[in-house]
């Protein structure tokens, strides 16, 4: 008997929304001001900011919703929000 | 099928004693069942229940309307109108009392009355006014329907030796005090 329609379960993959398309402003990191403290990563609600093994932090745009928390919380004002424009 | 109705008060161990009788009959290889009447049992309030004994499976699951035997755990219950309701002619009534049969309020009806001071026996044997195990001894003797050896064993198992001794006392002292009149 097929197990597909017995109990509803999600085991075929990860459900992912294109939240990158939600932005009207996007955060841009000014690397010359960045001290790589990592607070932007800590406070990013969507997990779009990652740090590598050298503790260098970077913003990924695929899922960034453009909330602006990183820009506001950056202690050195190294992130600015810029208007998205149609490419 | 033999049908017996129990009348007692909450705290007198009516249900427990009836269950012991069922266990006794079942262990003897026959069939029995007991349905307590489903009131809200409170210490002192009247309680009753229905016992059936048969040599084949008992199918009915309802109250007993025409008992052959009444087990009356307390002579004060004799005044209640429902106590004698439906008792068959020449039925057996087993009463826990220390009074004489003449002073008991019995209806005018052909019946056999057995008397036993079950509360007195209980107080003597285990210092508690719980007449149920003594009543079982009286029942065994008065009806002859259960295996007396097994019953004593079951009482010992459910309670203790003092209760079994109370049953034996009652077995030996239960009196037929009235028979087949009217």
């Amino acid at each position, binding site marked *: 008997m097929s197990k597909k329609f017995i109990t509803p379960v999600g085991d075929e993959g990860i459900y992912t929304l*294109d939240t990158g398309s939600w932005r009207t402003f996007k955060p841009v990191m000014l690397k010359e001001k960045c001290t790589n403290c*990592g607070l932007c990563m800590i406070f990013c609600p969507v997990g779009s900011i990652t740090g590598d093994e050298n503790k260098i932090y970077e913003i990924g745009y695929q899922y960034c919703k453009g909330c602006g928390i990183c820009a*506001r919380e950056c202690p050195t004002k190294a992130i600015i929000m810029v208007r998205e424009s149609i490419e | 099928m033999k049908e017996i109705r129990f009348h007692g008060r909450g705290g007198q161990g009516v249900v427990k004693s009836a269950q012991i009788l069922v266990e006794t009959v079942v262990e003897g290889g026959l069939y029995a069942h007991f349905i307590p009447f489903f009131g809200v049992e409170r210490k002192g309030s009247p309680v009753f229940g229905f016992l059936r004994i048969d040599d084949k499976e008992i199918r009915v699951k309802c109250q007993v309307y025409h008992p052959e035997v009444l087990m009356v755990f307390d002579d004060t219950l004799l005044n209640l109108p429902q106590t004698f309701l439906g008792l068959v002619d020449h039925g057996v009534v087993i009463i826990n009392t220390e009074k004489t049969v003449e002073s008991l309020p019995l209806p005018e009806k052909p019946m056999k009355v057995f008397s036993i001071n079950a509360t007195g026996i209980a107080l003597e044997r285990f210092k508690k006014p719980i007449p149920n195990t003594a009543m079982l001894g009286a029942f065994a003797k008065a009806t002859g329907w259960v295996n007396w050896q097994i019953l004593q064993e079951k009482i010992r198992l459910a309670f203790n030796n003092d209760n079994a001794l109370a049953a034996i006392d009652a077995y030996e002292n239960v009196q037929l005090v009235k028979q087949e009149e009217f």
Partner: protein
Amino acid sequence: MNYIDLIRQSEDLVTAGMSACQGCGAELCLRRVLQVAGRNTILSIPPGCMAGAGVVGWNFDNGLKIPVHIPLLDNTASFLSGVTNMYQRKNRPDVNIIAFAGDGATADCGFQSLSGAAERGEKLLYICYDNEGYMNTGFQRSSTSSKGSRTSTTPVGKVQDGKSQNQKYMPLIMAMHNVEYVATASPSNMKDMVDKVTKGIQASKKGFAYIHIFSPCPTGWGHETDQTIEVARKAVKSNFFPLFEVEQGKWKLLDNKNPIPVSDLLNLLRKFSHLSPDDIAQIQELVDKRMDLLRKLSAA
């Protein structure tokens, strides 16, 4: 390990794209909690913003990389009681059993099962993300909505002025259950939150643990999406949301010696924009009284 390194090195176990609002405090907290907990975790997320945001999956897909279930709105703690007992029975006490529930599922209809599970000392960590209302259904009041708060069911009108009742204060209620661990946490104080989640998970191996997280909601509360952390920070600094923990009966309170006035927080939030100076003074008084009580409890 430094908490920043811990988060940097931990796998994000939540789907990369989930349907939570921009600047959602709860999404932030969920990701961080699971980074601390790791893959050896079973999560229950009752109906609410986080479940609605798709992390319990959609059709045949999961929204997390770990096993997750959406219990009923009112049975998260009892459902997980069954799960954790089976895991103890299967001799797998290493599996973290965690609830991530909103305030409605915690303080309102889920309160009975939560209290029951806490009283029984079930081995699980129950986290409440408190955004002070039913935000997934459009900001109706809950029992944790703050006094004075405008909600869709306690509107501001000619004869009514937002929520007139005081907030039910869950952290103390849970502390009074004498459980293994109780704490409050705020996303603004992330190191503290990471520490507390770590402790909560450890405590859940011995008994019941409860963490109450202050979870700003830009959509419902009416602040800019980038202000989420600032709002949370001001809530802590004004003692509007005190940070404390009770570890096996031992109290520890983060006491702000010079708290900012609560108006600094309230002024950021549209849900309080109708309040008069008198109203704000009343809220300040409530906040001060609660802080006094917490000081007494933690001084003992």
